[in-house]
């Protein structure tokens, strides 16, 4: 019986793509005001084996890019990245003040409590690609203390 439960748990886990190679923790998207055309998505990614995040897709935006944020002196810069390395077993944070997923050309306002579907396209070292589907809750534009990391 024990073996049977273990076996079915295992098949459940493998059936769910998020468990296969890349785990996504604590995803969220920043809320927008009406007519605001872009926002950021944040999450923590952990790959079981060396991998690379190649692309992010979302039905809420026309363009989705992975951006890095740089501070040069006091100047904030954002640049699109061709990909983001996910070293085996190491949590890669997409968070305010660092890299993030940029949602550009939003089709509508993102309100607190909405859920934003995201598809991550990840490539393993063997060149095999997999997609990870997730939904990220929308958190308020103004992050109260405690939400800030």
């Amino acid at each position, binding site marked *: 019986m024990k073996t049977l439960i273990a076996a079915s748990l295992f098949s459940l886990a493998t059936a769910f793509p998020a468990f296969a190679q890349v785990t996504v923790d604590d995803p969220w998207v920043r809320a927008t005001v*009406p007519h*605001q055309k872009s926002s950021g998505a944040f999450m923590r990614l952990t790959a079981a084996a060396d991998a690379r995040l190649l692309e992010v897709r979302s039905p809420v935006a026309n*363009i989705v890019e992975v951006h890095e944020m740089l501070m040069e002196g006091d100047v904030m810069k954002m640049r699109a990245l061709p990909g983001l390395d996910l070293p085996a077993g190491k949590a890669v944070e997409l968070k305010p003040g660092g890299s*993030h997923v940029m949602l550009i050309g939003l089709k509508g306002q993102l309100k607190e409590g909405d859920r934003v579907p995201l598809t991550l396209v990840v490539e393993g070292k063997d060149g095999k690609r997999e997609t990870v589907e997730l939904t990220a809750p929308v958190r308020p534009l103004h992050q109260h203390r405690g939400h800030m990391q």
Partner: protein
Amino acid sequence: MCRKPFGVHPLVRAVLAVVTAWLLAACGSSAPTFHSIDVTGANYGHDFRLTDPDGRERTLADFRGKVVMIYFGFIQCPDVCPTALSRAVEVRRLLGADADRLQLVFITVDPERDTGDILKAYTAEFDPSFLGLSASLEGTREVAEQFRVFYRKVPTGDSYTMDHGTTSYVFDPAGRLRLAVAHAQTAQSIAADVKTLLQDPNS
């Protein structure tokens, strides 16, 4: 101190002189110290002339009696600008009863996209007292130059983002530029500096 100088050891007199001089310096000139960079007397950033979301022209003189903190940013900014505005909300909370003596002004470096309505909705999302100001492209260039704030439009995809300076500037209640606040500075350190400015008899 009632003792006559006569008969006092020269060394003691010397020490007394130093202590007296130090006390005079500390109390007399009353130059306050700050966590932020003290830019008192800077030859830039004397004023601004910008438009509020209701179409009214605003200058520094509108806020006499308040400490004014200005921040240059843009609304499509996913990250740094919301963080700076959330920090200002926290500064207000830390000021307690003096909260209304701080005016936060958000100056957009992206006036093409950040029009009045969106500017108003954006600042109100943080605090109803926050004020968003904008200008024409030319006026934006001028005000950024006056405050030595760098910004630049950078294409990305079929859209664009803005590189921009993240230093906030703080004016005292008399409307003089006093402090430059770094992006990494905490709300606590800013609140302490604002309190100092509110209590500074020279402000």
